[in-house]
């Protein structure tokens, strides 16, 4: 039998349920926005912002600053509760609406979003087809002229060797020592670009930063 070095995904096949179980601890470790996301948002404005896969809302807060209103969408009720508490503490709750939804089937009407971030979430969707469908649904909700920043974990991250993209699970260790496995598709940058090109999005700019692949896109 040939060796098969590719890790096989194990654990809960639904990342949002894992995030429900780790929400509070995960949120504690996600206090600050990523600099690359902050840079993208700081240069832009728009009527309505969308943070798709908002987690605890640390990037939705940036959108609430530069847009009239921001919408945070996440599949995990636990993370949405963290997002609501964070918005109340930091006093941007009036500018933020939260929705529980799936990134592959976004519950927003066409052309409703002027500025979006889709950070570190696409890589949790369980197949290439699902990921391309999600990108195409993002194109649908983006209004003409609207821009989005999409990021995924990349093979250029220093915890992975340079390689082609692969499926894996990444363990989260809770304070009591128990662990939860989260499914990831780790992208090589060319593969990320191919998925974007196969979706209805147009790529304005693509780059690597801090182990993540980023793309600025429009509909």
């Amino acid at each position, binding site marked *: 039998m040939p060796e098969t070095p590719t890790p096989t995904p194990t654990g809960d096949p639904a990342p949002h349920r894992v995030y429900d179980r780790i929400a509070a601890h995960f949120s504690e470790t996600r206090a600050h926005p990523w600099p690359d996301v902050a840079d993208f948002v700081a240069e832009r404005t728009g009527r309505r912002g969308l943070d798709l896969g908002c987690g605890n809302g640390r990037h939705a807060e940036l959108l609430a600053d530069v847009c009239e209103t921001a919408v945070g969408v996440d599949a995990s009720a636990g993370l949405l509760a963290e997002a609501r508490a964070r918005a109340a503490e930091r006093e941007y709750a009036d500018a933020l*609406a939260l*929705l*529980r939804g799936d990134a592959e089937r976004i519950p*927003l*009407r066409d052309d409703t979003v002027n500025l979006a971030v889709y950070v570190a979430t696409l890589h949790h969707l369980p197949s290439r087809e699902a990921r391309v469908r999600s990108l195409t649904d993002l194109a649908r909700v983006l209004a003409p002229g609207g821009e989005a920043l999409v990021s995924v974990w990349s093979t250029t991250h220093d915890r992975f060797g340079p390689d082609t993209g692969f499926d894996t699970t990444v363990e989260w260790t809770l304070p009591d020592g128990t662990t939860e496995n989260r499914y990831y598709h780790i992208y090589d940058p060319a593969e990320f670009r191919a998925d974007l090109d196969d979706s209805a999005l147009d790529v304005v700019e693509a780059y690597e930063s801090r182990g993540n692949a980023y793309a600025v896109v429009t509909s």
Partner: protein
Amino acid sequence: MKRDLMDIICCPLDKHDLDLDVESEEDDEVVAGTLTCTDCGETYPIEDGIPNLLPPDMREETPA
């Protein structure tokens, strides 16, 4: 949720508009209620003020 969210949300399955049925409201926020797709009739709960627009196949309560 605020009522003006109705202007932008839709059914995740077929993207049609939703009807809002309010069960309880505090200040300007709908705390509990139901959203019903005007086309396919699928219903979505508003839970603790947050619309749960996950497709039915992703809901926890979906029978195995």
